[in-house]
């Protein structure tokens, strides 16, 4: 059995959520210790964009602001995603962790398997799509949910979870969304260009089993499946004061990055 740290967070702003994940990447790399599983959600809803994306080119930022939706940049890859009606997870582990001793793709597969097991345990017939290796579908402006890639988690060919990674010399994080109910497909109304509807490309727990999972139900399913998949036992982790200050500082800079864009407001 390997000890993992568990951070069972409630909802936070996009800036705070991305700040915590970024802090986990540096913490776990510095410490070279146990992996982390963090479970969280977004309030208010937020659009996150990939590390190298230019929001002005891909999004109607003014409309986002008008609808009270946060905008924040991830440190991970992937494309724009609206976080709403989902459970979000982050796995952080040091390089060389016994739980993740394979390469990048093996890490994706392992985490995807654990999420599939969690979904199946609550009655959702999820599976890992075979997909062409690393396939990027079209322009960078396209939403995350239409980009097909290896090891996507799907139900009846429709995406039910998305994921993205950041890797450094000493650690990696993978974070992603598990769609509990419809909502995330609304991203298309904020994207530049006509992307049509995503209804045929994405699904959710509610759509698959006729009732939405509560955040609590999905959290418990995730804890159980990760414990099983990685032979892990969880110890709750609470950030110390120094950590909290670093996270608050990171969150401020993330919120400020787009505060001047389209008359945005400060948040986080």
């Amino acid at each position: 059995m390997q000890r993992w740290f568990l951070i069972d967070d409630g909802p936070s702003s996009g800036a705070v959520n991305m700040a915590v994940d970024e802090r986990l990447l540096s913490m776990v790399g510095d410490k070279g210790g146990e992996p982390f599983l963090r479970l969280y959600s977004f309030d208010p809803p937020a659009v996150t964009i990939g590390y190298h994306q230019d929001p002005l080119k891909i999004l109607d930022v003014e409309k986002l602001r008008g609808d009270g939706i946060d905008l924040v940049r991830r440190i991970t890859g992937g494309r724009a995603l609206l976080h709403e009606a989902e459970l979000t997870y982050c796995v952080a582990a040091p390089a060389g962790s016994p739980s993740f001793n394979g390469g990048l793709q093996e890490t994706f597969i392992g985490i995807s398997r654990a999420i599939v097991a969690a979904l199946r345990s609550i009655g959702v017939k999820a599976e890992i799509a075979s997909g062409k290796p690393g396939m990027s579908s079209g322009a960078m402006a396209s939403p995350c949910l239409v980009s097909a890639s290896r090891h996507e988690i799907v139900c009846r060919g429709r995406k039910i979870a998305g994921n993205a990674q950041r890797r450094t010399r000493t650690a990696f994080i993978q974070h992603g969304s598990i769609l509990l109910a419809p909502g995330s497909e609304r991203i298309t109304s904020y994207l530049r260009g006509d992307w049509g509807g995503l209804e045929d490309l994405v699904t959710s727990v509610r759509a698959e089993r006729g009732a939405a999972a509560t955040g609590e139900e999905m959290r418990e399913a995730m804890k159980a499946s990760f414990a099983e998949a990685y032979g892990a036992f969880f110890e709750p982790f609470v950030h110390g004061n120094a950590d909290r200050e670093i996270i608050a500082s990171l969150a401020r800079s993330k919120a400020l990055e787009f505060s001047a864009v389209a008359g945005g407001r400060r948040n986080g």
Partner: protein
Amino acid sequence: MVPEECRFTKEHEWVYAEDDVAVIGISEYAAGELGDIVYVELPEVDTEVQQMDPIGTIEAVKTVAELFSPVSGTIIEINEEIIEDHETVNKSPFADGWFIKIKMEDPGELEVLFSYEEYQEYLGEQAGE
């Protein structure tokens, strides 16, 4: 560049040395693991770097990976072609898909990197062989 004549890092970068100039790229294994590369961020020419300093990022469909300088020195050239045409990295990681050239301070630093044979063994260990 011939892979057998390169040195390698644990981060799956290769270095090909010609006198005191090091040409640097990512290995075929790394390009395959990342999948389609969609963005490459490289440092400016004349930047001075120390061995294993972060020097940029490479983004694939789902992953942002940091790049590190395998040697200390001054960056004398970056490969503009891969910034414009990322596919070159996937298609030709050991030749046209090179990233940067560094004028090395100390070519002796290459000795701490893997030889081709050692890198193959490292890949085998990663695959659980």
